[in-house]
């Protein structure tokens, strides 16, 4: 006997089944080539390194110790792994400096675009978006060719006679920062502009009419209103900078390593896969903390202004 209430529930079940059938290809690919390998990486971080790369299936927490500590080869005392810590510190420092640089350059740019007539704004934004979608490696190459010792900048400066010898910029920390600033700047401008476009500029005029200084207008009126965009832009620049691999490799030339290059090293010359895995998971954890912080901050901001 068919119960009336069972008819919609059978239909409901068919809908649910179809939905998961439709999702199967995408989820299968993502589990096979994105989520699954991450779990394997986590497992590998608790194994013993093999002699020629790879791992031996013996449980060990050494890799995690080695992320920040090292054992003295003579007397077995523990101490901080200076090499790793200095690379970690350089990654954080350069990423922060890149973020600050991106704010200094990106904020006025977003302001400029937001204050153009409405019909022109799309054009200016397209100018920001095109570099964002073009090859990161090529853009890094372009900057490298500019600041190389034999590059356009040095050639020009020497031809004019300002300097006699080329300034060594490439293969320094400054070069990595310039490179990252160049490739990630659009990521700051995009969300900042989105916030600023909604800003009511008559508030700015009102503030100024009431004899507020330029700085006071910026700090008391503009900044509080564009804060969500500023936070979003900072996270969007900071996160890829921290995990950058190509830019420090090209601009640092293997002399100035960042976290991404240190990780690669463990799979190449280092032959220490578990350490590489542990470093990867460390990087992932830092990024996740930054993203959670961002989601929280963005969530809080939306309520009062919504």
């Amino acid at each position, binding site marked *: 006997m068919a119960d009336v209430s069972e008819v919609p529930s059978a239909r409901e079940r068919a809908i649910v089944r179809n*939905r998961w059938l439709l999702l199967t290809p*995408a989820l299968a690919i993502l589990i096979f080539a994105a989520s699954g*390998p991450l779990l394997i990486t986590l497992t590998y971080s608790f194994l013993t390194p093999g002699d020629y790369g790879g791992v031996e299936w013996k449980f060990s927490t050494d890799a995690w110790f080695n992320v920040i500590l090292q054992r003295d080869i003579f007397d077995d005392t523990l101490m901080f792994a200076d090499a790793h810590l200095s690379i970690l510190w350089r990654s954080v420092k350069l990423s922060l400096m890149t973020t600050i640089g991106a704010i200094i350059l990106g904020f*006025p740019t977003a302001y400029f675009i937001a204050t153009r007539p409405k019909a022109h704004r799309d054009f200016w934004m*397209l100018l920001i978006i095109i570099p964002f979608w073009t090859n990161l490696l090529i853009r890094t190459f372009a*900057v490298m060719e500019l600041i190389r010792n034999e590059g356009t900048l040095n050639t020009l400066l020497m031809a004019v006679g300002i300097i006699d010898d080329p300034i060594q910029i490439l293969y320094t920390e400054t070069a990595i920062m310039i490179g990252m600033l160049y490739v990630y700047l659009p990521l700051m401008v995009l969300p900042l502009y989105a916030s600023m476009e909604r800003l009511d500029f008559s508030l700015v005029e009102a503030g100024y009419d009431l004899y507020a200084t330029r700085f006071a207008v910026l700090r008391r009126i503009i900044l509080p209103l564009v804060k969500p965009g500023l936070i979003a832009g900072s996270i969007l620049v900071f996160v890829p900078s921290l995990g950058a691999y190509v830019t420090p490799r090209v601009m640092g030339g293997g002399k100035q390593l960042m976290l991404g290059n240190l990780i690669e090293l463990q799979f190449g010359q280092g032959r220490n896969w578990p350490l590489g895995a542990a470093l990867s998971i460390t990087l992932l954890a830092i990024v996740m903390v930054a993203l959670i912080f961002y989601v929280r901050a963005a969530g809080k901001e939306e309520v009062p202004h919504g």
Partner: protein
Amino acid sequence: MAKAFDVRKQWGFTTIAIICFVTLYLPVILLVIYSFNAGSSVAIWEGVSLRWYRSAWENTQVQEATIRSLVIALWASGISTSAAVLAALATTRVRPFKGYSAVFAAINQPLMVPEIVTAVALLIFFAGIKVQTGYTGLAYIIIAHAAFCIPFAYLPIRARLTGMDLSLEQAAADLYATPFQVFRRITLPQLWPGILAGAMLAFVISLDDVVITEFVKSAGQDTLPTYMLGQLRRNITPEVNAISTVLLGISVTMVIAFFFVSRIKK
């Protein structure tokens, strides 16, 4: 005077903004210009020539890398776009269901996890499979690309679907059209600009990838970007600029086309 204040004319900000636009484009424009250099320097101009385009064209390594890049990008965008269409149909215009946010997080995972972390994870995983099966073909790179292309294909398709009215599809279903007929006759004709936009985005993203390819590829499987990265250790000639210019041309064309396709009226 307070009245002289104009939000549009903040010369300090305007100056920085102009510097910003110039510096965003100047290095790339110089790179393109020097690809036409007759000399072998990327900084000293010696006249116009197509010498480096010819040398890139005749370089067998570049030829192979180009074909490999295109094959991978076509497969990856095809696979990821098909999977993304199905996933978008299952997650758009429906009531929130159990597991919805988990599915959404899974689809967007490649956007959140740093590329180097995914690259290393794939290296570990695929190294194991390569040993077990002995297969070392392009499929590893294709499946890896397909995975990180899914969110890029998914977003424009989802955006298009969200704005589409369900009533036509319901009407067709009421008139005894099979689900496949509904999809082919009603959904697909409205959805295709979104699908095309998603496929183009996935193609560009796959074509430009360096990090994941660098870690997943077996010996002799260079794509154009990894080939260029490998050239770094050598003396840089405008040949690299010529290859870059061609790749840039493809990317910019695709992005501009994407802009227009995603504006097609619903």
